[in-house]
């Protein structure tokens, strides 16, 4: 999987760990289910921690925990599910999350302009996507009407 962060193609150091698997990396992303069950242990563990939010997540529920995460991953079950756009915006502008906000799953190149605008900073690409074209698409428009976080 290719990763774009801050408009650069980089090596991804993070790994999403399925709930039943042990945490074995230095940069682990866990589900909200796991965070609820094992939160205390996860905080005490060495290494960086990321949280994956599914599209039906309620961002307000994790606001108090944000300080424990270096990364929030917003996962698209299908590209038409637009809740992640609001999640990103709330995390960035309302709750002041300064870590990496990444998107993964079924989003598409034609959405990265919007995603960048609402505060998403990294993109896990599908294999088919050409990274340089995706980076270029982040600047599809040079002017905008609405205020946003980025």
């Amino acid at each position, binding site marked *: 999987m290719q990763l774009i962060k801050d408009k650069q193609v980089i090596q991804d150091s993070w790994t999403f760990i399925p709930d039943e698997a042990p945490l074995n990396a230095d940069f682990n992303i866990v589900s909200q289910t796991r965070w609820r069950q094992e939160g205390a242990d996860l905080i005490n563990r060495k290494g960086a921690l990321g949280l994956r939010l599914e599209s039906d997540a309620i961002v307000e529920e994790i606001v108090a925990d944000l300080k424990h995460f270096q990364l929030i991953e917003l996962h698209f079950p299908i590209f038409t599910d*637009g809740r992640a756009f609001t999640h990103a915006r709330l995390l960035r502008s309302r709750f002041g999350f300064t870590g990496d906000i990444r998107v993964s799953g079924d989003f598409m190149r034609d959405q990265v302009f*919007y995603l960048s605008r*609402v505060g998403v900073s990294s993109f896990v690409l599908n294999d088919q996507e050409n990274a340089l074209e995706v980076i270029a698409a982040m600047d599809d428009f040079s002017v905008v009407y609405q205020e946003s976080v980025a």
Partner: protein
Amino acid sequence: MYQYTDKDQTIIDERVTQFRDQTERFLKGEIPEDKYRALRLMNGVYVQTHAPLLRVAGPYGLLSSKQVRKLASIARDYDKGFCHFTTRQNIQFNWPALERVPDILEELASVQMHAIQTSGNCLRNTTSDQLAGVCKDEIEDPRPYCEIIRQWTILHPEFAYLPRKFKIAVSGAKLDRAATQFHDIGLHLVENEHGVVGFKVFVGGGLGRTPVIGQMIKPFLEKEHLLSYLEAILRVYNLQGRRDNKYKARIKILVRETGLAEFSKQVDTEWALIKDKLVIPAERITEMCAQFALPAYQSDAAQDTSYAEHVAKDSRFAAWIKHNTAEHKIDGYRAVYISLKAPDSPPGDCTDVQLDAIAGLADEYSFGMVRTTHRQNLVLADIKQADLFVLWQKLESLKLATPNIGKATDMICCPGLDYCSLALAGSIGVAKEINEALDSIDYVHDLGEIKINISGCMNGCAHQSVGHIGILGVDKKGEEWYQVTLGGSSENDAAIGDRLGPSVSKEEITPVVIKLLEVYLEQRLNEDEAFLATYRRVGMNPFKERVYATN
């Protein structure tokens, strides 16, 4: 009217580039069908029975003559010489080739037009009153606010992938001519007890499969908070709206399932957090109002005497004045409806020749502007009374002066089975048959104000559920049948029509409509009691008995 700035122009130019790239990638097989579908819909491109359909935005129904000429040339060069005006003040081309759509968009961009968000699950074109700025019953011109909303909606980064489509309408007059209570958000300009003008906000209205009348969520919203309040509603909807079932995904279902009180509370909680960050500065409102300043009316227009003479002498002209023109707030002027409901042409269609001619008439008589109406007609809003007679003659020669505005043959009609891949039954053919049955214009005038709306399927593009007589095409074992409703209204007295009874066959539908009209004529108290009023007074029974009588 609003003139694009460099920024507005840049946005639509860059959109053309983006859509051209998306279409080329699709044609090369680089974007899967389902993903391209969402992208093309958000640019107004449907794939229909015969060819793609392109829906072009008509922002709150206002077009310049230059734009109308461009529509004519597109109809000629890319289509079969005509276009169609829709119930949301947009313009549709029925026969473009997909690979040429980017070229059409480029042509449109050259006259400050686009097709952005005219379809898809996103914020759609904002609609308004076709008599905005000229009607006598206006509290304030809604168009400056429509344009502010238009800019806020275009490419909104957070609300581009909503659970379902989202439509906003704004009315500035006492009489709601924009069907605002049947929109996801309806805004009415109102004056509060301190003489301050703001918005009364309705939410959760909509037509389609489950017609619902919008409920008032805020009796008075200060103008400067318009965008923050809209944003609060959209944020709640984007997060809470149902995404598991597209028939339950509109905000009307969310409001119903949540309850208005609880929904309103959630919106207010969200609003409180963003209210002060998204204020519309007073200067911006002033600047925007200046874009819609009144044209240079002639102060002596009312002194003309020729108009009264023509009315007295020519009964056909007098009938056209009575039925196809409306009062104007400036003495000596009237607003003229151009009827796109000539008996022999599909409702709302207009040819390239007619479009060019209309543009010329707008330049000559109406400050170069044309408006579209949600009942699929056009308006020249600022006609001096001295010009009315000659304008009428010219419109007559173009078959654009059928004196039937608001009458039985001024039907709203969707493309139906003739064009649409969703349709279950024909609608244009039914309109044509009703027109043929009502071939006496005196009879049509005697029937008075009546709105007949015909949709070819329950998606209800022609707003059949709010027609005084609504006709809905249904499929019955592979045959076209029609369900009839009575008593709907999209105005201030908003109502959803009641079902007449079992559906009727294609052969029966026109005779049924004629029977309904006969019952009305028999039952009405006098000529001043319109169909809707009679129906509300006498109820369903007399109509039902006549239609379903067994001889």
